[in-house]
C-alpha cells in the first residue's frame, strides 16, 4: 500500500515570485484551489487506495503545500531539502520536524549545497535521474548516490519554465517515461535516450508539457494527470495505464501540479 505525504492548502497563495509561472498579480481563487486539492485527495484515497499523511499547514508558508520538495524518502531514511531561495528555506524546519516525529533517520547534505527533494530526484527502482542547474546542485547527487548505492544520472535543466525535474520528466511504474526533451540540453537528451528505449518514451507535446502533463502521479497502473492532456492520456491508455484527470489550474499559477503536491513515502 502506497503512502503519500500531503499538506492542505489552507495558506496557499502567491506571495513572491521565484519561477516564471508565479506572478504576484496572478489572483489565486483560494476556494477553488481548496476544492481542486480535495478532489486530488479524493482520487488518491478513494480511486487509488493510497494512505495519506497530512502535514499541518503553516501561515506565511504558501508553498508548504508542494510536499514533493520536502526531501526524498528512501526506506526509513529521509533527506531533507535545502532550498535555493530564502522564501522556501523557511519550510525546511517544518519538513524536518515532520520526518523526525515520524521516526525517519535523517540525512542532511553538505551545508551550502542546494537540493530540492523529489522535485529534482526521481527515477526507476534501479537508477535515478537528478535535475540540476535551476534549483538543485549537481554536487548533491554523488553524495546521495554513495549513500543509497544507486546510480544517479544528472540532467541539466535548461528551460526556466521547467525549473524542477518533476515538471518535465515522469518515470512510470512499468519502466515508461513521460518527458519533454526541450527542457534538457542535448547531452541530457542523449543520456535519456540511451537509457530508456524508444518505445517506452513519450515525448509529451509542448502544449501538454506546459500544462505540466509530466507532473503526473503514478501509483501502480494508475496515473493522475492534470486536465487537458489528451495525447499523454491516450498514450498511457495504450501502455495499459488507467488515467485520472484532475483540474489543478489554480496551483499552476504557482508552477505546480499533481506531482508537486505529493511526496511518496515508501
Amino acid at each position, binding site marked *: 500500500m502506497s503512502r503519500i505525504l500531503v499538506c492542505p492548502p489552507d495558506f496557499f497563495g502567491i506571495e513572491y515570485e521565484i519561477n516564471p509561472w508565479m506572478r504576484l498579480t496572478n489572483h489565486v481563487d483560494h476556494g477553488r484551489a481548496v476544492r481542486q486539492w480535495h478532489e486530488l485527495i479524493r482520487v488518491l484515497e478513494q480511486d487509488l487506495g493510497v494512505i495519506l499523511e497530512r502535514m499541518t499547514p503553516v501561515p506565511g508558508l504558501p508553498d508548504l503545500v508542494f510536499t514533493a520538495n520536502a526531501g526524498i524518502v528512501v526506506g526509513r531514511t529521509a533527506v531533507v531539502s535545502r532550498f535555493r531561495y530564502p522564501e522556501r528555506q523557511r519550510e525546511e524546519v517544518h519538513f524536518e520536524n515532520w520526518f523526525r516525529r515520524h521516526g525517519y533517520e535523517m540525512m542532511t547534505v553538505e551545508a551550502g549545497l542546494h537540493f530540492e527533494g523529489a522535485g529534482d530526484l526521481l527515477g526507476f527502482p534501479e537508477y535515478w535521474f537528478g535535475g*540540476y542547474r535551476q534549483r538543485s546542485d*549537481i554536487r548533491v547527487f554523488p553524495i546521495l*548516490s554513495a549513500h543509497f548505492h544507486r*546510480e*544517479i544520472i*544528472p540532467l541539466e535543466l535548461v528551460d526556466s519554465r521547467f525549473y524542477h525535474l518533476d515538471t518535465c520528466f515522469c518515470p512510470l511504474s512499468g519502466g515508461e517515461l513521460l518527458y519533454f526533451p526541450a527542457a534538457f540540453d542535448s547531452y541530457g537528451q542523449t543520456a535519456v535516450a540511451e537509457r530508456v528505449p524508444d518505445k517506452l518514451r513519450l515525448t509529451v507535446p509542448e502544449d501538454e508539457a506546459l500544462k505540466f502533463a509530466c507532473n503526473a502521479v503514478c501509483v501502480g497502473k494508475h496515473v493522475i494527470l492534470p486536465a487537458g492532456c489528451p495525447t499523454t492520456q491516450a498514450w498511457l491508455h495504450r501502455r495499459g495505464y488507467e488515467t485520472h484527470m484532475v483540474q489543478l489550474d489554480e496551483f499552476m499559477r504557482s508552477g505546480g501540479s499533481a506531482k508537486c503536491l505529493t511526496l511518496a513515502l515508501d
Partner: protein
Amino acid sequence: MNHYQESVYLQGHIIDSLMLAKVLDLILMMGGTFDLEDVHIGKTREEPSHARIRIRTASRTLLDDILKAIQPHGASIEREADCRTDRALADGVLPDDFYATTHLPTQIRLNGRWLDVDRIEMDLAIAVNEVGSVAQAVPMGEVRREDRIVVGREGVRVIPLQRPQERDVFGFMESQVSAERPHGHIIADIATRMRQLRERHRQEQADSQVLLAGGPAIIHAGGREALTWLIEQGFIHILFCGNALAAHDMEADLFGTSLGYGLTAGRAVPHGHEHHLRTINRIRGIGSIEAAVTSGMIRQGIMAACIRQGVPVVMSGTIRDDGPLPGVITDSVLAQRAMRALIPGVGLALLVASTLHSVATGNLLPATVPTVCVDVNPSVPTKLADRGSFQAVGLVMDAASFLSELARLLGRAT
C-alpha cells in the same frame, strides 16, 4: 604556450550522463585545452566514476571563464596549497627536504598565485625572493645562508611540454637513437631551424641563439672548415668546448695538423705530437686567443671565426689537459657557472662529438630547447637521454659528415 592551468575534479555518474563529455566539450569550445589525468570508470552502474582534468589556457581571464562555466556541472577546483619554503642553513647547503627540479617548465604556488620558475634546469633547487614575487632555479653551490628555498612537493607543478607547432623532427621529441635511421631529413630539419633562427637573431628576437658544444673529434674528423663557415655565416652564436678543440683548431692553422696528423696528408708527421703543445705554448706566450687572432698569429679556423664574429666561447678544462690555453676555466664549478650564464636565449643546441660537453650542456638546458646530439658512438646520445635530456634528438654519425652536410644545406659551396 598555454601557461595558465588549473586542475578540476569531476565525480559521480559522469560517463552515461555525458557529464564528462559536456565538461570537456565546454573547455574546448571556449578555447582551452585539457589533459585527462587519473580517470577511473566505475565497473558497475552503481559505482561512480571520477576524473581529474587539467585545464590549460592562454590567458588568466579565459581560465576563469572556463572554471566559472564548468563548475555548475560539478567540476570542483582541486584544493591547492601554497608551496612551503625553508631557509638555507649555510652557504652551499640546501634544507634537507629541498625540492629538486626537472628541466621542464615549472611553477610554484605562493600567496595563492602560480609563479613561473625562472632559469629552469634539472637537478637544482628553487629559491624564492623575500616578497615571494620571483622564483628561480638555483644550483646547490650558489645557495647562500638564509636563502628561501622551496621544500616538499606541495604547491609545485611541472608543465609537460606542448608539442611544438613546427611539424619537424623536434615535434616528436623522441630521443630514440639508432645508427640505422636515415639522417638526411633530420639534418634538413636542423638546417631549416637554423635558417629561421639566424633571421630571428638578426632581428634580436628572444630565444634565437644557436649553441654548439663540441669536442676535438670535429677537427680530427675534418669538420673544422664546415664549422668555421657556419660560425662566419652567423648560424652559430655560442660555443662550448674544452682545451682540446681550441688547441687542435689552432694547431691546424699553425702546423696543418690535428694532434700531429697531417690533416691533408692523413698521416703522422715527424714530431707532429708536439704541435698541439707548441700551439698552446705560443698562445700562452701572446696572452690570449683573442690576441693571437687580432695579431694575425692565428688566421683561420673555428677560434678565429668566433673572435671575429663576437661569438662567446666557454672553454672548460679537464684533468688531462695540456697547458691549458689561456681562457680555459679550470675550476669546474666556475666553468659550469659560465656556461649557465649563456643558456638564456638559446633556441637550439647542437651537441657534437663530445660525451663530456654534451652531458654537461644537456644538464643545463631546459627541456623546451630543441637539442640535437651527434656522435659516432650511439652510447653518447643514449647516455644523454638516460640522464634526463629526453628532448634531445640523437644522431649516430661522425661530426665532420654532420657539419659538412649541415653547411651544404645552409648554402656552403662544396
